[in-house]
């Protein structure tokens, strides 16, 4: 399937050093983001990989953990691929080792590893840093080790504690929802989880990031558009590098987002993918983990508010009304957020970030997902093609929002 309809498509599929340099110069992004995007382009012409063969991982993992811990007698058991997830390969395993008290224990762990090319090309050290920054502040899996360049495990990866809990409650039609899109929670679940969901988001935004080691994050100045410039730069660059088809509505949206960029008064830690499907709850209906921090950045809290209430992610209530992150009406979500955080919701800014949110989901689903499947780079090629459908719904919504705000 190597037919290039235009010169631009040929350059995207076979990026030359000159083309990569032009792309890097055109889109302002954070330094760490530039590193991973540039690596992705340089790797693009490498041969497709076999995603199901993960037996190769057992020995490198064992060596890596022995090296990291200095324990030559530790063992790795039950290495298994996890279902679900869309952007990273995920595995679970049991580590038999001696803990910090010197006692032998069997520890359930998970690995998050980059595929050959991902729907969101992100930085494992950056994800590790943000998880450590959030540890103790909000419920997250504990990160134990990281291989940021993939020197030991073949691809960049992090190893964290494996937590038990529920991400997708049973659905009315017994179907699983891809990446948690459109989940349904029964009223009793919604009642138990809604406040926790909002409170944790408020807590994330209250993390004093200046006191954390976030060396892979660019710290934007207060009262400037810098955070938004680099964030938009990331998504524009992802679109430009990955799309298999130019799209006039996406160009319209990018231009509007550039020309209407709001000031970020006081940058906060933005989760970047805060929604149903990215949290887990235990048997006591307590949220015990927030996942998928790989899109975190320092920016405006309205971004998380817009994303979490995006209609495309939310499932319906019993009357068919779409709920913010499948848990509560959007007005209630915003009101609770103001109460828990003390931050005011600026509806003009919220509208801007709604446009931005639809732009982002359209980039992920209509460009990057389809690109990685085209390049045969992931373990999820069939799913990546299928999820293109979300992207075109996103583009449609984006156009309708732009008509309304213009």
């Amino acid at each position, binding site marked *: 399937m190597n037919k290039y309809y235009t010169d631009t498509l040929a350059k995207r599929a076979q990026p030359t050093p000159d083309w990569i340099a032009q792309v890097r110069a055109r889109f302002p992004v954070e330094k760490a983001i530039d590193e991973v995007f540039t690596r992705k382009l340089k790797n693009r012409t490498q041969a497709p990989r076999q995603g199901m063969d993960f037996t190769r991982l057992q020995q490198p993992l064992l060596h890596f953990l022995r090296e990291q811990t200095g324990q030559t007698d530790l063992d790795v058991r039950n290495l298994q*691929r996890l279902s679900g997830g869309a952007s990273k390969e995920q595995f679970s395993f049991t580590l038999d080792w001696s803990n910090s008290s010197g006692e032998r224990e069997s520890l359930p762990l998970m690995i998050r590893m980059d595929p050959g090319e991902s729907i969101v090309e992100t930085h494992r050290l950056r994800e590790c840093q943000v998880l450590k920054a959030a540890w103790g502040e909000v419920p997250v899996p504990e990160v134990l080790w990281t291989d940021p360049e993939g020197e030991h495990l073949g691809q960049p990866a992090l190893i964290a504690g494996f937590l038990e809990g529920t991400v997708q409650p049973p659905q009315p039609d017994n179907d699983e929802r891809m990446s948690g899109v459109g989940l349904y929670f029964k009223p009793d679940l919604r009642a138990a989880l809604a406040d926790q969901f909002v409170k944790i988001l408020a807590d994330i935004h209250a993390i004093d990031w200046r006191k954390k080691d976030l060396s892979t994050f660019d710290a934007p100045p207060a009262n400037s558009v810098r955070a938004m410039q680099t964030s938009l730069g990331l998504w524009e660059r992802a679109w430009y590098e990955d799309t298999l088809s*130019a799209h006039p509505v996406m160009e319209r949206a990018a231009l509007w987002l550039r020309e209407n960029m709001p000031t970020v008064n006081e940058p906060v830690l933005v989760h970047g993918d805060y929604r149903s499907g990215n949290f887990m709850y235990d048997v006591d209906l307590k949220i015990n983990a927030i996942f998928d921090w790989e899109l975190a950045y320092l920016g405006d809290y309205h971004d998380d508010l817009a994303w979490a209430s995006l209609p495309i992610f939310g499932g*319906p209530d019993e009357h068919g009304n779409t709920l913010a992150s499948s848990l509560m009406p959007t007005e209630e979500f915003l009101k609770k957020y103001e109460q828990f955080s003390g931050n005011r919701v600026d509806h003009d800014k919220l509208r801007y970030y709604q446009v931005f949110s639809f732009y982002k989901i359209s980039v992920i689903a209509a460009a990057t997902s389809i690109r990685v499947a085209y390049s045969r780079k992931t373990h999820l090629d069939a799913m990546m093609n299928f999820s293109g459908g979300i992207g*075109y719904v996103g*583009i*449609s919504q984006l*156009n309708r929002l732009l008509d309304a705000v213009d």
Partner: protein
Amino acid sequence: MTPEIEQFLSGMKKTMEEVVLPNLTDRFAQEQAGIVAATLGFLSTIHDKVFHYELFENREYKDILQDVISGLENSGEQENDIQEVISKINKHFSKDRPEDQSALRPYAFLRASNETMRELLCELIQLQPAMPADTRAQFEARLKPFFRSLETRERSWVKGLGFDPEADQQADIAELLYDEKGFLRGGK
């Protein structure tokens, strides 16, 4: 020729659902096989409309590009960058002429031509800040109905993938492509 494509697809879907899936034990493999079966079901709904979809888009892009060029040329002298894109569009129209019978072209030709026209329209959209205010306003006004037609069509095309929370409000793609007599809309 038989079997028809529809029969190939429905046969594969049935085999996947009734033979392969029930015998898979790995959770991840089950999940992926389910997506393959769903994809085959989606392909059954669209495979016979792909050529006409591209043909329809070919007309739409030719019409909008001719329209915006005419508008830009009537509004006086344009910036060099805009002139350059107009030249590229005219050059493309010498390869895929608006008056040609595009229905006689192969699929790949239409696809390539449409992609070229999409890229050129996108270049013009990015150059809007270089247009005088009234020219830009006219340009945007011309594009709005085009954008609406485009996103409505695409949304109908992907309706069968099951992600649209407003799926019941979207027309079937056949309704958008064909008129009440069964002919492709916009035919000349």
